[in-house]
């Protein structure tokens, strides 16, 4: 089980580029310094290469399995219960102007790209 990839695995098929690493960092909302790009690329490529062994698996007619529990999405009674007080939630925020949580300007200059 802990051997390296099986024989039908065809490595290396992953040609991850630095641009792709930049893109995935942007999607993941991670500011990735340029000096870490190449190391990230090689680590990601090695793992993705390994993951590609699943391509060799015959999955014809196999339904994806997202969770093992059979009783997801069951309905609860729609009755109000206790919840955390506003003060407790605001106390967790690194910056707050009660009763609000402070964020940088979103619209106009300085807003999200």
């Amino acid at each position, binding site marked *: *089980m*802990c*051997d*390296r990839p*099986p024989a039908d695995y065809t490595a290396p098929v992953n040609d991850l580029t630095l641009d792709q*690493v930049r893109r*995935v*960092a*942007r*999607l*993941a*909302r*991670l*500011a*990735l*310094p340029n000096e870490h790009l190449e190391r*990230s690329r090689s*680590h*990601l490529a*090695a*793992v*993705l290469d*390994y*993951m*590609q*062994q*699943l*391509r060799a*698996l015959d*999955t014809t007619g*196999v*339904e*994806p*399995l*997202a*969770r*093992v*529990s059979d*009783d*997801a999405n*069951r309905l*609860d009674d729609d009755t109000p*219960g206790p919840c*955390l007080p506003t003060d*407790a*939630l605001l*106390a*967790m*925020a*690194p*910056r707050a102007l009660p009763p609000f*949580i402070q*964020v*940088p*300007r*979103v619209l106009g200059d*300085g*807003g*999200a*790209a």
Partner: protein
Amino acid sequence: MTPSARALAADVRARRRSAADLAREALDRAHAARHLNAFLDLFPDAAIDQAKRLDARLAAGEPVGPLAGVPVAIKDNLCLAEPYGGRTTAGSRILADYRSPYTASAVQRLLDAGAIVLGKANLDEFSMGSSGENSAFGPTLNPHDPARVPGGSSSGAAAAVAAGIVPLALGSDTGGSIRQPAAFCGIVGLKPTYGRVSRYGLVAYASSLDQVGPLARTVEDAALALAVIAGPDPHDATSARAPIPDPLASLDTPVAGATIGIPRQARSTANHPAVAAGLERAASALADAGARVIDIDLPHADRGIAAYYIVALAEASSNLARFDGVRYGRRADLEAGQGLDDLYARSRAEGFGPEVQRRIMLGTYVLSAGYYDAYYNTAMKARRLIKQDFDAAFAHGGTGGAGRAGGCDAILMPTAPGPAFRLGEKTTDPLAMYLEDAYTVTINLAGLPAISVPTGWADVDGSRLPVAAQLVGRPFDEPRLLRLARTLERGVGF
């Protein structure tokens, strides 16, 4: 050696020992073993105060729970509010100053049963690691050899139990994070069936795989802890309503006639010789007790690591999106002209360690447009095939289909391919670290219960290191699993 949790609770209930004395002694042991870095926080005042309250209740003749006065460690990805201060870091800088306003359900059940929380235990950041080295607060050391890792991610919990500081700890297991450190530290680690224990208050890593469970010195203590923490919880929609028969009641029922399957894949030539010998010793112990040991096949087990890491990291990338520097956790100081996107990206880059960032990026990649089908969807199909392998092995009627042996009551295999490795040995090669989890991850993908039990020792470079095997059971069949584990434990005589 410290007495078991069950023995300590009996002493406290009978007022032969005071809970306050037990707490003080455990705190002394924790201080003496500080070099292990097993604890991120100790609660001397709160622990002794809670213990004194318990002693007062006993003196007044009030009823107390089955863990009365037992000092415990809690993995620091389980929320614990007042009177324990609330700090819950998940081993991450991004949560270094976070204080939880509520307590995790499993932890609350331990407290309600009379346990005294001694402290919060170190872990790999967000449970992402198999060595304990990924903690933002420094690695935990293995009590058997401080130059080696204790395993992970429940590194501090395992080290604290193995060092005799506490008889019981609570951890979490997403791909082996209870069982593998238990194996490396020579203790018992139980990952319950998915849904058996509430995940409310557990800092999420991969929600379809995460499960809370105990680490203990003995199978009996693991059973005792499970009886306390198991059961449905209105705060966790995935907590199962299946009945939980008391695992302690049937712990000593003979196992004669049980069928134990050993997967062909479990006898890999990559196993350390001591692990291989331990597996055979475990099989003999069960056979000597009257169990039938048969060979089985889990044909898709070889795909477990690839499928697991795709599923787990996809879920992690989604779960960890909540750490945005806005609602809680670390927030970056912005420079002039920077906006909300910079706040997210910089807070996360400053707060998450390198392995967490790597896993988030991998998860983001496998979910991104153009790759979702090739990676995530295929991994979910592999997950079904892996689960069907287990279903076939457990199928009643003697055959698991396709000519395979079925009818197993439990499956026996190593917990890890080798004993504890050296600090730093695998940190430069993420894939090598992931491959350590080969025996544990398929069980999480299938949502099954499994328990790691020590099977012997490996002599490596002058160190005597424990090795272990795990038993895997049918869903919600923990009482039988624990019975078999108890038989193995006694037969092996570790």
